[in-house]
């Protein structure tokens, strides 16, 4: 007991000592690996051999009771003929229990989406590197890359017991996706700008057909994309993507099937202004407990009440290797915390059974100090993206010609990058556990262009930075040593827009601004509320935006934090991003040949096979880092969703999990295999 306490205390000391006394990252990382907080990547695995499907099945006591009462058919009839067989990471679990967790209110739907992430057709394995089936039994991409055939599980059912078939895909495609009142066309479904089709072959076979080769489509279906994300995330919050939808339930809310008058009347009765709002409500699993879904848990108390409560889906189509229907845990209760501080304190008090979302890395010492008393263990899961804090330079900025000139100057950006002391940032804000460097993903990633690109323009070298700034014409300084504008001789002021969101970005930006004093650059850090910052970036008003580059480790599935291709978040150039996304119809065409080259490479990748695609991505990363559109600082850290507190009562908890957008943390480690030991 005492020893354990000593252990956690010495970890903090070690981290502290390493960061304070020794030069740099390596020692802090060593201390980290010795601390036992960072484990080996592990997780539940799938058994895909049809011969390994258990001969008989069993179910949770709460469902057996309902079967006995005649409310449910027996488990054999609820499962598909070929259920997904999951081998839990450590042991076969037992049924029961309530998983207590915290959430932040109606906007925190992602908290539950991610737990139900296995409702995707394809998914990634626990390492985040290999694509495996999930709701779909199998897939086959044609030789020419134009046709993707999806095989469904025969006898698979929605959570209300109705069959889940190819008709649900056609319904989604024809009646939801192609209804311009409900959804808009997405690039995920339109390789080369040409819209694709969804076609039913038979009850359990669906084809996605395209006019252009679309080898990337397998990754798209497995990724957290609009097409592949699954029903829970992609049909919530007013969005209408995700490839399939419960036709038998949703038809009653569409004018085409129910009649315009009927849907108008229903909308009016429920207090909605029109039928579209009603439809968005009815197909949202977070809000509507009646909605049939296919994830492991279904909503029983909606997200817009003080507790978001989920219960096991009696028709969930996965079993463990002994034939026990999953999930093991009966119920999930998320209780509302009005604020992340309270959520963290509750986690520390042991009021949650498993929580990684909204946990603040900065609180690690307090978290470790209370681990024994509150009976939880702490895991640090390291991410694969290069930079948790990235300074994105707006290349389409045009409000101030002089500033725009410098923001678009590559040597200006490179010099600013060399002016940043990443080790100081790492020690202060990442407790020394991050890896400093450029924005490129982890060296182990097939997208990584090579280890030398980690340091490219991304070391601390104020002397070179000063020389470069002098050389590009910013050699005049005012009385306080700051460089001045070339048009009016006043001090050059770079506006850095920061939001206090996942990390204390405003404080980090202030530290960078201090460091830039050594190279004569005045940075004004402006803190904005998140919605307002988004509004400003959409209006092309920001000069520099501080944000994570999370997600870019899979460049094609989540490119927007690295290159401006998606107007949702085109921090590197909103007008350029709009130009790219609208195929040149709107926005402004880049006048930067390097960006045009990136666009060409990116566009061509969708039709390339895997190995070639990786090479293309590496080329893109080389340009991105060489041009320093986004200055990387510190990454591959547990700062975003990587500090995991797991109750010691829980079994099958992996020692380290993949944290990434496409791993849908914690969904990628199959929460349906976690269980309460007593």
């Amino acid at each position, binding site marked *: 007991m005492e020893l354990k306490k000593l252990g956690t205390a010495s970890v903090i000391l070690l981290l502290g000592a390493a960061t304070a006394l020794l030069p740099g990252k390596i020692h802090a990382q060593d201390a980290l690996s010795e601390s036992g907080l960072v484990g080996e990547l592990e997780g539940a695995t799938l058994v895909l051999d049809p011969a390994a499907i258990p001969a008989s099945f069993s179910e949770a006591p709460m469902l057996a009771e309902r079967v006995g009462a005649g409310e449910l058919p027996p488990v054999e009839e609820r499962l598909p003929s070929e259920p997904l067989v999951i081998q839990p990471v450590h042991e076969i679990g037992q049924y029961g229990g309530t998983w207590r967790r915290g959430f932040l209110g109606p906007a925190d739907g992602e908290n539950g989406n991610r737990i139900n992430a296995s409702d995707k057709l394809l998914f990634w394995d626990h390492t985040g590197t290999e694509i495996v089936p999930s709701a779909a039994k199998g897939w086959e991409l044609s030789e020419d890359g134009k046709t993707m055939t999806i095989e469904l599980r025969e006898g698979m059912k929605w959570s209300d017991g109705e069959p889940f078939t190819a008709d649900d895909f056609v319904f989604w495609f024809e009646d939801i996706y192609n209804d311009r009142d409900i959804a808009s066309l997405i690039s995920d479904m339109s390789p080369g700008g040409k819209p694709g089709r969804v076609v039913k072959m038979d009850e359990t076979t669906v084809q996605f057909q395209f006019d252009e080769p679309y080898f990337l489509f397998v990754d798209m279906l497995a990724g957290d994309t609009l097409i592949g994300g699954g029903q829970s995330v992609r049909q919530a919050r007013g969005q209408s993507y995700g490839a399939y939808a419960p036709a038998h339930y949703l038809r009653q809310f569409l004018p085409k099937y129910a009649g315009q008058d009927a849907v108008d009347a229903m909308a009016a009765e429920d207090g909605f202004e029109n039928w579209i709002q009603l439809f968005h409500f009815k197909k949202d699993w977070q809000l509507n407990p009646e909605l049939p879904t296919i994830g492991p848990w279904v909503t029983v108390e909606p997200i817009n009440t003080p507790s978001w409560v989920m219960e096991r889906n009696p028709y969930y189509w996965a079993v463990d290797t002994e034939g026990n229907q999953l999930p093991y845990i009966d119920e999930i209760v998320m209780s509302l915390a009005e604020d992340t501080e*309270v959520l963290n304190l509750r986690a520390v008090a042991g009021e949650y059974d498993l929580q990684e979302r909204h946990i603040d890395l900065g609180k690690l010492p307090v978290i470790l100090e209370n681990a024994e008393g509150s009976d939880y263990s702490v895991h640090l899961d390291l991410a694969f993206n290069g930079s948790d804090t990235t300074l994105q330079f707006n290349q389409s900025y045009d409000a101030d010609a002089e500033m725009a000139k410098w923001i678009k100057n590559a040597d200006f950006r490179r010099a600013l990058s060399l002016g940043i002391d990443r080790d100081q940032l790492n020690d202060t804000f990442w407790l020394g556990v991050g890896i400093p460097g450029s924005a490129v993903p982890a060296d182990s990633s097939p997208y990584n262009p090579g280890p030398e690109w980690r340091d490219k323009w991304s070391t601390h070298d104020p002397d070179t930075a000063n020389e470069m700034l002098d050389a590009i014409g910013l050699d005049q300084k005012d009385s306080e040593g700051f460089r001045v504008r070339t048009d009016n001789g006043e001090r050059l002021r770079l506006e850095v827009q920061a939001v206090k969101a996942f990390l204390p970005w405003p404080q980090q930006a202030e530290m960078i601004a201090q460091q830039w004093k050594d190279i004569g650059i005045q940075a004004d850090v402006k803190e904005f509320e998140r*919605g307002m910052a988004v509004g400003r970036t959409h209006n092309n008003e920001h000069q520099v935006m501080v944000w994570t580059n999370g997600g870019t480790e899979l460049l094609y599935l989540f490119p927007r934090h690295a290159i401006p291709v998606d107007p949702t978040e085109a921090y590197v150039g909103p007008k350029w991003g709009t130009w790219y996304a609208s195929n040149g119809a709107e926005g402004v065409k880049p006048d930067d040949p390097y960006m045009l080259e990136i666009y060409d490479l990116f566009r061509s990748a969708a039709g390339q096979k895997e190995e070639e695609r990786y090479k293309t991505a590496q080329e893109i990363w080389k340009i991105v880092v060489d041009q320093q559109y986004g200055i990387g600082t510190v990454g591959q850290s547990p700062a975003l969703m990587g500090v995991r507190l797991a109750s010691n009562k829980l079994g099958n908890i992996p020692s380290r999990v993949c944290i990434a957008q496409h791993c849908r943390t914690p969904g990628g480690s199959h929460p349906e295999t976690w269980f309460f030991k007593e």
Partner: protein
Amino acid sequence: MITYIVKRLLLALVTIWAITIVSFVIIQLPPGDFVNSYIAQMSSAGGQVTIEETKALRELYGLDRPIWEQYFAWMGRMANGDFGQALEFRRPVSEVIVDRLWLTIVVSVAAIMLTWMLALPIGIYSAVNQYSFADHAFTFIGFIGIAIPNFLLALIIMYFSFKLFGANVGGLFSPEFERAAWSWAKVWDLAKHLPLPALILALAGTAQLVRIMRANLLDELRRPYVVTARAKGLRERRVILKYPVRAALNPFASTIGYLFPFIVSGSIIVSLVLSLPTVGPLLLRALLAQDIYLAGTIILLLGVLTVIGTFISDLVLMWVDPRIRAGFSA
């Protein structure tokens, strides 16, 4: 006097109408709209919002229409008792507010009672025993109470009550009662959780009230009528409580107007820190999300409560203070 009351009532109606305009304009003032905050939320969750979708969303919620058109649509619906859909919660605004209203009132009334129960006796004691040791002690504590931001106090007290007593962190119920139906056990659970937030909410107010009460009473105590009462041989207790204290209470009656809105959204930050399921954090959330209907309705509610409160405080003043009543007959 009747004409005075009628006049005040009419004026109140005009004021409320003005408040509807002001509250609607206020929430439109910050740049951007609900769609911006929606995109911010979607994108931080990895979602993607296309250009067409952005346009469609503004159309769907009527945010593309001119502000006066939105205002009249809102007013028209309110005339029918429909406050609209809370955009983020996607439930009717009235439901979202009523959900939290009762607990809000319980917490606030408890805080106000506690404030009065502490402040009035201490204020009277301090005034009567001016410059005594106890007066100095109360003054010292009082100034600390005013100076420390009470959200900070809330955080500190919350951490230590968890560390030392293993209490639940924040909220008004133990986890096992959070979802339970109302029962005596649940009421008792609420009663157990109430003192901490009530005390923290009450502290700053108490410190202020003590100072006001003390100052008012000191003014009154020096008046000739007090000397006269004493000279006539009234008992000290009666001398003080019957006359000067009553006169010193005047300022309290006139602040009833501000008490009403306090009951509904008192101290947003403390409620947020303590994670109280009350209207305060709801208002903050609505403002951040630029949810015009929810924020507008809460601001309107606060405005209306202020107007009603002021009206009532006028009536109360007339009742407690004969000098005001005399003003009408003269």
